């Protein structure tokens, strides 16, 4: 039973004991908590509102206008910008490119990241050094990486051509051929981001209790079955986290494309985020750029929601 203080008036109302002072005080407490809550939240909410939500609302408005970012007049054009996107062959290509890039870049980053993590989880010599090396590209600037890889991909005097030469394969003209430019971008992106996935996977691997493996061994499970039935399910929350963040990051990958190909040749590496930039700053068409940005936003939101809704159900949180 709750204790009451001396000052509290204890009365009985319709057979129930009511502690007046306490209820008044709890109401005051609640108010004080609200005030505190608002005081704590307000700076954040104001900043969020000012720099995230307001620009988003403004972006929606801009997507229904035609504006060259310099003219004092913005023309209302209704849904014309969206109609343009629906009809624009380049935009269709951009959507296909984005899908291609996202699936390949995320798929390979996670797959190779997992393999590397499994290797680094073994009691190897120089393991810590190897971990640092694997993670290092993640920390580098995308623009700098882009410049260096442009040289590596040169079909005549590039490092890649030499490596391919060792196995008697002639180098494709990576950045000048539409069919090779996207694979080149994907290779660089995976190289840069695989280390991050590997480190996160590694943390997940090390959190798996050893006795699960011991039990599996006792049950006669071989290496493959231990991986399939213990490692993979236990890694599922980590994999899920990596999947969501990698997809979102890949959608926003801009620096490497800007530096290495600028969306070319013939739009073969033009992805949604690059298209937003291109329409904004090459075509000086803020309205169309805003419409494309909104498409990007909606796509990312839908994908994230779908993932949260369906994928999470399959995730095993141990």
């Amino acid at each position, binding site marked *: 039973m709750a204790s009451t203080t001396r000052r509290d008036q204890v009365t009985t109302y319709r057979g129930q004991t009511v502690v007046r002072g306490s209820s008044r005080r709890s109401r005051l407490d609640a108010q004080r908590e609200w005030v505190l809550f608002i005081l704590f939240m307000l700076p954040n909410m104001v900043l969020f509102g000012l720099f995230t939500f307001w620009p988003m609302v403004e972006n929606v408005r801009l997507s229904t206008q035609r504006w060259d*970012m310099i003219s004092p007049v913005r023309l209302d054009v209704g849904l014309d910008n969206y109609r343009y996107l629906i009809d624009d062959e380049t935009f269709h290509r951009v959507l296909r490119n984005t899908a291609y890039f996202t699936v390949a870049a995320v798929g390979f980053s996670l797959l190779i990241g997992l393999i590397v993590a499994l290797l680094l989880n073994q009691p190897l010599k120089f393991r810590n050094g190897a971990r640092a090396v694997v993670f290092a590209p993640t920390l580098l600037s995308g623009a700098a990486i882009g410049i260096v890889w442009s040289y590596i991909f040169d079909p005549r005097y590039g490092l890649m051509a030499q490596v391919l030469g060792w196995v008697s394969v002639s180098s494709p003209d990576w950045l000048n051929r539409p069919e090779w430019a996207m694979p080149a971008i994907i290779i660089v992106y995976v190289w840069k981001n695989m280390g991050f996935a590997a480190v996160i996977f590694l943390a997940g691997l090390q959190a798996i209790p050893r006795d699960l493996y011991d039990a599996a061994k006792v049950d006669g499970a071989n290496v493959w079955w231990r991986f399939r039935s213990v490692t993979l399910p236990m890694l599922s929350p980590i994999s899920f986290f990596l999947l969501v963040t990698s997809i979102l990051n890949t959608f926003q990958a801009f620096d490497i494309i800007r530096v290495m190909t600028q969306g070319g040749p013939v739009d073969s590496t033009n992805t949604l985020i690059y298209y937003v930039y291109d329409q904004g700053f090459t075509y000086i068409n803020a309205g169309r750029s805003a419409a494309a940005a909104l498409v990007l936003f909606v796509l990312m939101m839908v994908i994230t929601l779908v993932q949260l809704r369906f994928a999470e159900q399959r995730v095993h949180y141990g």
Partner: protein
Amino acid sequence: MTGQINRRSLIKGAAGAAVGTAALAASKRSSVFAAPAVIQETGSQVNVVFWSAFGGKNAEVEQEVIKRFNESQQDVVVEYQYQGTYEETAQKVIAALQARQAPDMAVLSEANWFRFYANQYLAAMDDFIAAEEIDTSDYVESFLTEGQRQGKQWWMSFARSTPLFYYNKQMWAEAGLEDRGPKTYTEFSEWGPKLLKKSGNDVSQWAFLHAPAVDYLSWPFQGTVWAFDGAYSDEEFNIRITEPNSIKAGEWLRSTVVEGWSTASQDRTTDFVNGVTASIMQSTGTLGTLIANATFEFGSAFLPSEVTSGCPTGGAGIGILSTSPAEKQQAAFKYIAFATSPEITTYWSQNTGYMPVRKSAGASPEMQTFYETNPNFRTAVEQLAITKPQDPARRFIPAGDSIIGKGLEEITVNQAEVQPTFERVKATLEEEAKPILEQLKAVEG
């Protein structure tokens, strides 16, 4: 040491500062308060903020020009601020105009200034030209008139260039060719296969490399399309790229890749320096880079002709922003007059490779001696006689360069059919021209 700080001196200092502040506050109210001497001295000077777009060695040369200007007189101080490439500078000026923090003048490329003019953000220079008593007849006419609309001067040429045909003399000799550029595109097509070296599918030496769309492919091709007596557009923005002569130019472009002696390259300048290609078309502004990096002897020549000759101008000039007060506009022009004076033009041109914008500078004994020792610089100046401003479709339609360039890239990269490709380019250009035409109608009637 006398400057040692201890707690006592700190407290004394703080007290002193407080007294000083109080005294200052009191004196501010008094009518006899006088500004410090320094401010009085510079009070009559006009400070001009100048946004520029030259990097590397050209930036050093430009800063020297500004230094000389600031030292040459007492009325104006130019404050130099580097903003990136031509495109980045234009983007920043646009953003600054929105934030009402625009500079007083800015370097604007031949393809960018028009956007500011069409939105009435450029100040006409005619009154300033008159006030400074500038003899405009000494300016190279095509450079001067390019910045004119409605009979007024809105933009002044400063760092102007043209494409040149550069060739590797050693490869030329190996192919048994005369030491000169091809006279016509037809002749170049005959030479192309002779300059190609390949074994199986591996090409070790291309005869020629095309620029990618993002590196202004539509700029040298402007010369090609004119040479075939075609055009991107006329002065009224009527798109002419699908006319038979323009298509012929496109067919020539396509033939170079179909016949296999040329292809597209992301970085043709580096490829030329590394001996991957025997020739390229590139800006006069690249001459310095080529001289510094090429380990072989190379020549420069006019762009080839065909039915007629064709070569576009390029590069940048300076615009004065109309958002600045009249006093600053006037002061900004003083710098433009200085930077395009015969003396500075000579200095700028010799050190950067950009073409002299003043006739007297180009003809000066100093410049003539320079050309004697650097014959490649002379080619550009001699070619000037057949050079003209590009068609409005490329210069004035936002992304005009990119739209035409991507069409041309379809041809150089994918060997796309010319007619349907140019039809698509035409449709896009017409669509994108609409807003600028409306703006022009509003501004020029």
